[in-house]
């Protein structure tokens, strides 16, 4: 049992690559919001890339190793400290029993990933160790970490010294462009509404979390219609439908919300576009105030971007094999 939580940070949870396949029953995929960084952290310490690790948004936790182990921190830029001294991120770092791990301020990005050799050994639920906090299952007792929690870890891994090459580390900007495929309900926006969605700059609001990323900006105009039976009265309402992960809804025409990995699976808001899978990590690493533009791409472009992203992950695997 080598990892003890001294301070939990804010909403730190255990995540892995998620539990795809249950969304149609209302259970979201979950898993790391930035899957690339999570894979990198695991590979660095010699784990399977789908091992469970700690995801901490905005504020780093304070941990103690109760046995000798190896950790790796990836994701957002936030200074790693071991017993108060600076240590490298994107690198496997050996810890001795009793070492205390803490973090400086977040300087770029939004979430860090902390992998421990052997992985965090919590029970699998529906094939995954990811925490789904709203459903109170998965991860460590179905909730965010608290001070005093002792995280069991598996065996294996532990290869200190390896690091992710510079060109395979993501860079984080306060001004990003997110590629989207338009639809299914973009036809419900007026021409002016559609133009505003794609041409204006949006700002990420502080309510963004694992379920959804909400943006402030202009009000979007919808085409007026007599609402169909079963739909709410606002023009942004539709008859309930399934929500794709990454889909963007705009309740009331105000504040678009990108559904992320802990999103609800359906509801009655028109989805005007869906973020392409290759850009979901980018969205996940934006923090409040980040300026965001949406750029429409074709489905073919989205699939090409997905293949490029897969190639990048292959390059990461090769560099850390």
């Amino acid at each position, binding site marked *: 049992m080598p990892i003890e939580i001294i301070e939990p940070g*804010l*909403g730190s949870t255990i995540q892995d690559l998620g539990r795809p396949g249950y969304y149609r029953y209302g259970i979201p995929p979950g898993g790391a919001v930035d899957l690339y960084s999570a894979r990198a952290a695991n590979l660095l310490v010699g784990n399977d890339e789908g091992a469970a690790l700690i995801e901490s*948004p905005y504020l780093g936790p304070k941990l103690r190793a109760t046995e000798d182990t190896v950790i790796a921190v990836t994701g957002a830029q936030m200074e790693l400290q071991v017993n108060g001294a600076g240590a490298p991120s994107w690198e496997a770092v050996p810890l001795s029993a009793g070492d205390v791990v803490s973090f400086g*301020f*977040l*300087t770029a990005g939004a979430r860090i990933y902390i992998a421990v050799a052997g992985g965090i050994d919590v029970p699998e639920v529906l094939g995954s160790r990811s925490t789904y906090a709203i459903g109170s299952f998965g991860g460590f007792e179905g909730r965010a970490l608290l001070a005093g929690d002792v995280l069991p870890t598996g065996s294996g891994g532990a290869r200190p010294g390896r690091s992710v090459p510079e060109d395979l580390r993501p860079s984080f900007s306060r001004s990003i462009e997110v590629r989207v495929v338009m639809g299914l309900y973009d036809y419900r926006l007026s021409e002016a509404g559609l133009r505003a969605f794609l041409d204006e700059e949006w700002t990420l609001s502080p309510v*963004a979390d694992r379920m959804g990323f909400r943006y402030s900006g202009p009000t979007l105009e919808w085409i007026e219609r007599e609402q169909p039976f079963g739909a709410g009265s606002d023009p942004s309402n539709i008859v309930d439908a399934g929500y794709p992960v990454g889909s963007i809804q705009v309740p009331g025409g105000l504040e678009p919300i990108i559904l992320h990995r802990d999103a609800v699976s359906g509801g009655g808001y028109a989805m005007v576009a869906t973020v392409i899978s290759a850009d979901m990590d980018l969205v996940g690493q934006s*923090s*409040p*105030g980040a300026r965001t533009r949406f750029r429409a791409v074709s489905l073919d472009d989205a699939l090409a971007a997905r293949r490029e992203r897969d190639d990048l992950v292959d390059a990461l695997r090769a560099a850390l094999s």
Partner: protein
Amino acid sequence: MAEHQVQSPLPGIFYRRPAPDQPAFVEEGDAVTADQTIGLVEVMKQFSEVKAGASGTLVSFTAENEGLLGPGDVIATIETD
């Protein structure tokens, strides 16, 4: 006298009051103790208390009430005892 700068550990919206209809946690010029709450930061629909971190006199707020903060931004300056 030494100065202590209170920094925000989190990004989010800064509030000087516990609730809209209540007075501010502390006013400029007030004496504060290290573990005293001087404001709240809201992010991910959660409110985190910001502690003074040092005892003394809170001489000024740099952060605006209901303004957006980044991690490490200075919220207030305390002249320590």
